[in-house]
């Protein structure tokens, strides 16, 4: 912070040196991420939707499918679906926080950011960190409150592997998955002119990506579906989280190992964010709008 203040003073002195002053990346990322949080908390309907929907999904799908579901090691559907809903929360938050790129562009806010002397990296990171923080907050809230629903009879008791001991690891892992998905949302939203296009991509690409990640149902032993699931990078995101919050070791025996999950998720995050940075840095007629 002290660096930023030093720079600002040189601006106030004005003469000549102004052109060489470089605003800090950190301050720009901080302010852009903060804006995402403030906007989120200011829109009550968005908060209700973001928190209500996953609970409704979990309770209703849980109630409907618990009779027919045969999960690994005999766990209930609610227990199987539990980490899957957390991934869904992360996915939806990533979508909603990056769809705002299109609105920012349409409403003109984005061009103000683009003419500011900040590195293009800061523009990407500000957005992605903002979305990541929102996603992790909501997912953690769900993981903590979800098991309590058994108390009021809305679900059978589920055993959660989330403890005070592994909480930091779960938090870090969720942040990684959220970072990857928000970067993915960013690179999809950046080239778009209308939110309609984004909604189309959401239905034919992002939703199936979640459905086929082992979040909603386990991968079959063989067949085309098993391959689709195996090739889906998000499968490893879900599997990693499942390994962290499922206490029953037999229930996760068929999943990729945790190091594999971590490696695939990190690699996908790096690829998505790199494309996002590249797209943002290009000087094109589209970026100027």
């Amino acid at each position: 912070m002290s660096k930023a203040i030093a720079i600002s003073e040189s601006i106030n002195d004005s003469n000549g040196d102004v052109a060489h002053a470089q605003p800090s990346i950190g301050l720009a990322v901080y302010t852009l991420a903060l804006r995402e949080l403030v906007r989120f908390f200011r829109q009550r309907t968005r908060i209700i939707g973001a928190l209500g929907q996953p609970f409704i999904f979990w309770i209703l799908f849980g109630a409907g499918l618990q009779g027919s579901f045969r999960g690994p090691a005999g766990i209930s559907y609610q227990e199987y679906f539990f980490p899957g809903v957390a991934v869904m929360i992360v996915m939806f938050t990533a979508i909603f926080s990056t769809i705002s790129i299109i609105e920012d562009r349409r409403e003109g806010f984005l061009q103000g950011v683009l003419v500011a002397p900040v590195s293009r990296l800061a523009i990407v990171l500000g957005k992605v960190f903002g979305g990541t923080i929102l996603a992790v907050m909501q997912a953690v809230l769900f993981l903590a409150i979800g098991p309590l629903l058994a108390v009021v009879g809305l679900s059978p008791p589920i055993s959660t592997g989330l403890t005070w001991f592994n909480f930091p690891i779960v938090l870090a892992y969720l942040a990684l998955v959220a970072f990857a998905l928000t970067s993915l949302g960013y690179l999809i939203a950046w080239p778009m002119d209308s939110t309609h296009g984004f909604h189309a991509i959401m239905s034919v690409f992002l939703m199936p990506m979640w459905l086929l990640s082992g979040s909603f149902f386990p991968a079959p032993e063989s067949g085309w579906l098993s391959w689709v699931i195996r090739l889906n990078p998000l499968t490893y995101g879900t599997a990693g989280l499942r390994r962290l919050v499922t206490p029953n070791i037999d229930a996760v025996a068929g999943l990729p190992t945790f190091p594999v999950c971590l490696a695939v998720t990190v690699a996908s995050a790096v690829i998505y964010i790199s494309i996002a940075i590249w797209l943002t840095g290009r000087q094109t007629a589209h970026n100027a709008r």
Partner: protein
Amino acid sequence: MSDSIAVRVSDLRHRYGDREALRGIGFTVAAGEIFGLLGPNGGGKTTLFRLLATLLPVQSGTATLLGKNVATESRSVRQLIGVTFQSPSLDGKLTVTENLKHQSHLYGLSGQTAKSRISELLDRLGLKDRAQDLVDSLSGGLKRRVEVAKSLLHRPRILLLDEPSTGLDPGARHDLWEYLSRLRRDEGTTILVTTHLMEEADRCDRLGILHKGELVAIGMPDELRLSVGGDCLTIQSSDPKSLAEKLTDRFQLTPRQIGESIRIEGNAGHELLRDIVTAFPSEITAISLAKPTLEDVFISRTGHRFWENEPV
């Protein structure tokens, strides 16, 4: 002295696919000058504005702001300029102060420095009592003022404004221009403004008139008007065509018919006016005598009316 040149543009060209938006533009703007780019929509103003604001890649030619090349030193250029967009670049879900705070951070101002700078600008632009209001709740005129405040936070040496009066009532427009001339006087800020309004163009020190991607005239507003010369007679008639023919026969004039009206440029307009009214009293519904306007300059340089692309 190269220091006194704030903006130097030479042979700047830009095309969007097949369409040529700028066809080799060149001009300079002195430091501390208010320079206007006047032209109808589609004339290339906005393209030029976006090139100078580092938003579009330079395809051909060069543009430098205080010696910094827009194409190769865009980061330095961004630090030098303040940009006021036609559609305000504000976040409507945030308050006025919040918008200004984020902007300060993007320009490397923080803490007490940012705070005092924000309150100074709120004060100067008369926004103090609206500081805590959401931007969405402000009128168009107030939003524009916030946008101007936003672009001035880092004390830019050059201020670029794209159609700053769009959506402003005459009072608000007047206030804005008062503020701009004060800014130039007190801080020596160079101001470059695009506009399609003649009265706004009249407030600039110098003007460049853009038409179809070319700079068709450049100079001080008075200088440009003088170049058209003499007086300008405008006659309204129910049958302008036949009247124009009669005028040609009787007075050996070269009237130009523009829609429902006839326009005559020449000297000793007051005598001509008297003679015409005496000669054709029943065919004239209205007649006016005026010194040439900037619109006349545009017409005489391009052979087009300002608002339409039909030939005169």
